Structures are given as structure tokens and as C-alpha cells.
């Protein structure tokens, strides 16, 4: 009964995504608060756990405003276009693999659709959301929104390139585009096998979902709230939730691609979706940690970072992985040693070169 399975998974994914997005909103505020020596929201419910609910209720009661001279229909559609891809990403994310796991056994991978082009699907779908941002920026008839949307385009188009190139390394190592096969292929987590790829993917993805230090898109000190300056109420909430849904999506994808998804590291414990969720939180914590420490980069620096730093490094990474694939080294522990050393060397050398060049970053 395929359709029954689909319905069940749609429900699971919706419940998973929405509850995790709520949890992320709360966690972000609590964890960043802890980083800043304050407790964060702790008023509503036990330990502030109902804060997202209170926020949601408040935001739903707000008036839904459309700018008088804006493009009405585009303005209304934009949040939907921006939000929907965030949920679509989870369609191919495997929560648990085939076979026995912690607690129960499955006869096929626990994903809505284990697409054999899963990686491509994720890249394709996540590139859609920028259209929602552009629509919002355009339709708001607001200069901040327009500037934000233009930044969004520049950012998305630039970071897509190293992002995809770093995924190609994974695809070469695992020999498949299906996320489940990628997880299965990770007897050694790919973060060890391709540390450079992980770095590039993590930085690129941080930029793609507009999180610090690449949160230029919503640099509130510069362009107020960027493309959602003119949004309020429910429609603003969709942008807001969408952002966290992307953060969740990226955490999930990083866990799947680099951290071994639902597998416990080195197979010490049976596979389970619990490890997957734990890894998601770990990646998200990393993002929060970075966010609460680093200031924002400037737009030209960000573009330079994508094109002059990440892109060459991702090409190097690709070359390295391909060379290992065709040579006798393969993808074992020997490759781990070589890659870790080479990754550190490349990053240090290239970073020095990138940073010290006059006119690139230091004026």
C-alpha cells in the first residue's frame, strides 16, 4: 500500500518539521541566551517551553498588511513559495535505514521517498526558496526589501556553486545520489573522510540559509528586516518559520551527508533515528555557537569568500576525492589521515593567501 505509506510519512514529516521548528525557535533563544549569560525566555510554561506557542498566538492575531503600492498577489504568494521548499526537503531525508535498529526493524528505509536522485532533489528544491524572497522583496515596494532581495540573489547564486561541488565529493565517495545509500556508505563518517568538504558545505549552507556570520540578508542594522520588512502576522510567521525550517533542513542534510545520519559512529550501537535527531541538534548547536560569537561580514567580503575561498577549495576537494577514488588509496582510514592533513594545510595556506591579498578583505 504505497499511498498509505505516503500519507503516514507526510504526517510524520509535518509533525517532525513543525515540532522541531518550534523547538529550534525556543532552543535558539535559550542557547544564545546562555551564551550571553542570560537565561533566555523562561516565562511561559515550564522553562519557557510554551514560548513558541505564545509567539505563534501573538503573531497570528496581528493584522495582515499589504503595502498599498505593492504587488498584491505576489506579496501574498511570496511566503508560501519561500516556506514550501523547506518542507519539501524532508521528503528524501531518511530517518532510519532498512534492517534492525534500536527498538524496531524496518523492511525499507524510513523516508517518504528514497529518491535515487535525492541529493539533486535537495539542491534543486532548496534553490527555489530564493524565489520566494525575491517575490517578497519585489512586491513589498520597499527599498530595504529590494536591497535584501538583491543580496539574496547574489548570495544564493554564489554559494550554490561550492555547495554543490562539495556534495559531489560525497557522491563520488558513496557512489550514489540517494541519501539512504549515502548513509549506508558511511562506515567512516564522511566528516572524517572529507573534512574539507564538510567545512565548505557547512559554511556554504550557513550562508544559504542566511545565518550568522552570513546573515546579510536580514542585517537588521543595515536593511531593517530585508525582504520581510513589510510583512506582518501570519505571512511574516511563514518567513520566520521557513528560516528555521531551513536551518532544520540543513542540520538534517549535514547529519545525513557528513555525520552518518541514523548510524551511530562506527556502528558501535545499532542504528536508530535517535542518533539522527541528536546529530541534528549538534549541528544546530554549532550554528548557534557561531552566531553568538561572530559579527557579520560585508556583502563584498561574502561574495569574495564564496568565489575566492570556497570555490577553489571545493575544486581542490573534488580533485582530491576523485584522485583517491581512482587510485589505490580508496576511502579507508588511510584516506582519512591524508585528507585531514591536506584539508588543514589547504585551508591554512589558502586562507592566508585570501586574507592577506590587498583589496580583497583588508582595505
Amino acid at each position, binding site marked *: 500500500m504505497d499511498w498509505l505509506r505516503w500519507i503516514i510519512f507526510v504526517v510524520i514529516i509535518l509533525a517532525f518539521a513543525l515540532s522541531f521548528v518550534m523547538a529550534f525557535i525556543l532552543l535558539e533563544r535559550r*542557547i544564545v541566551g*546562555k*551564551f*550571553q*549569560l*542570560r*537565561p533566555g525566555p*523562561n516565562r511561559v*510554561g*515550564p*522553562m519557557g517551553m510554551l514560548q513558541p506557542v505564545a509567539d505563534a498566538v501573538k503573531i497570528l492575531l496581528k493584522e495582515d498588511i499589504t503595502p498599498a503600492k505593492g504587488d498584491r498577489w505576489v506579496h501574498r504568494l511570496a511566503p508560501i513559495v519561500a516556506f514550501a521548499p523547506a518542507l519539501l526537503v524532508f521528503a528524501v531525508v531518511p530517518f532510519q535505514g532498512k534492517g534492525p535498529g534500536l527498538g524496531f526493524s524496518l523492511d525499507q528505509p524510513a523516508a517518504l521517498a528514497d529518491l535515487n536522485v535525492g541529493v539533486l532533489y535537495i539542491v534543486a528544491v532548496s534553490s527555489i526558496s530564493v524565489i520566494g524572497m525575491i517575490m517578497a522583496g519585489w512586491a513589498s515596494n520597499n527599498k530595504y526589501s529590494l536591497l535584501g532581495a538583491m543580496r539574496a540573489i547574489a548570495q544564493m547564486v554564489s554559494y550554490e556553486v561550492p555547495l554543490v561541488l562539495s556534495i559531489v565529493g560525497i557522491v563520488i565517495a558513496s557512489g550514489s545520489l540517494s541519501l539512504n545509500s549515502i548513509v549506508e556508505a558511511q562506515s567512516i563518517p564522511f566528516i572524517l573522510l572529507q573534512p574539507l568538504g564538510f567545512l565548505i558545505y557547512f559554511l556554504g549552507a550557513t550562508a544559504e540559509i542566511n545565518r550568522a556570520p552570513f546573515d546579510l540578508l536580514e542585517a537588521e542594522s543595515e536593511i531593517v528586516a530585508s525582504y520581510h520588512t513589510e510583512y506582518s502576522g501570519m505571512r511574516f510567521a511563514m518567513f520566520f518559520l521557513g528560516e528555521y525550517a531551513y536551518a532544520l533542513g540543513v542540520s538534517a542534510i549535514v547529519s545525513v551527508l557528513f555525520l552518518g545520519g541514523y548510524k551511530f559512529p562506527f556502528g558501535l550501537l545499532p542504528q536508530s533515528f535517535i542518533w539522527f535527531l541528536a546529530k541534528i541538534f549538534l549541528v544546530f548547536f554549532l550554528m548557534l*555557537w*557561531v552566531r*553568538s*560569537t*561572530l559579527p557579520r561580514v560585508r556583502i563584498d567580503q561574502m561574495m569574495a569568500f564564496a568565489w575566492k575561498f570556497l570555490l577553489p577549495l571545493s575544486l581542490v576537494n573534488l580533485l582530491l576525492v576523485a584522485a583517491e577514488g581512482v587510485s589505490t588509496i580508496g576511502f579507508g582510514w588511510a584516506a582519512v589521515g591524508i585528507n585531514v592533513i591536506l584539508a588543514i594545510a589547504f585551508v*591554512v595556506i589558502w*586562507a*592566508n593567501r585570501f*586574507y*592577506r591579498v590587498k583589496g580583497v578583505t583588508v582595505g
Partner: protein
Amino acid sequence: MADAKKPLGQGILKGLALTLKHFLARPIITVQYPEQTLVHSRRLRGCDLVWDPERCTACCTCAKSCPQGNIRIETRLRPDNTREAVVFEIDHGRTMFCGLCVESCPFDAIHMGKASERATYSRESLVLPKEKLTISPERQPSGYFRPQFEAELPPQTLLVYGGRASEGPAAPAAPAGPPAPAGATPPAAGAPKEKVGVK
């Protein structure tokens, strides 16, 4: 100036290490206000002015010293040739609590209050006539320019000492270097509400 020769990325890593250290080791320094309160300064200029009709001779020095012209007094000659204030009115919505009236009063008849929670729903209710200006349990004078009150008030809690009182031998020796944890840890939900000091 930062040294350009230092290995790259170490600045970011140092910052990350510091925030992680704070995340893991440092207690929360904010005071959870409704549950915890810090004791104010003994000289607090709270959002109150307290008037003592017994001592007031209706000399109007306070009204003259007020930069805002905010104290309204109408006086009357008593049969015994002294004066009394028939009307003594202060608009608490307009005063800036500079304390000049308290400072200038020759008979210690007007004091700063030590209350700090005086929100109301209407501006009109902030205009206090003389009946409402007198000392009452919730309108206590503070020690501002009134050493006789100052001595009786509890010592201020200071964040320099981690939210403890400002004097006495109990003031803890300073651990060298940063930082002084301040305030108690926030109460977990459901924990009994803790009162630091008095309101």
C-alpha cells in the same frame, strides 16, 4: 593593533572559545526580576515624592527650586500666624525626580520615596494631592539627602559583589581576574520563588 603575523583564524577561534567557556561555565548574571529583586540604594530617588505635613511650614522653597515648576502650593495663614499648605500637589507624571526640592527644603518636610514600582493606567492618577503624598506603608522615604533615614535602610546589593549587600565583613574577598558571577541562578520553573532583599 592586531599583529598581522599571527596565524589566521586564531582570532575567531579565541572568540569561539570564550563564548563556549561562558556557555559551559558561567552562571547566568541577570536578575530574574519579579522573583528576585535587588535592594536599591539607600539614597534611591524612587518614583515617589513623600511629604510630611507635620514638618511643612509652607515656605514654598521646594516649589521655587523645582526646575519644572511642578510643585503646586497654595498656602493660608493660620490664626497663630504660621502658614499651612492648603493645596500641595505634585504631578508624578511630570517630575523628573531630580531631588532639588528635597535638597532645598529647610525643614526636611519633603523626601524622595524609595518605591520603584508605580505604574498606573492613567496620567490623571499620577497627580497626587497632599492627602496622598504623606508617608504611608507603601510610601516610605528614602535616604536621599536625609541621613537620618539613610542609616536605617538596608544596605544596597551590588553586582560588583555578585549581588550581595554592599557592606559588612561578609563582603567576599575578590577572586583575582574575571569575572564575578552575579545574582542567583534563575529559579527553575516551579521552584519556590526566591526573594533577594526587600522590595
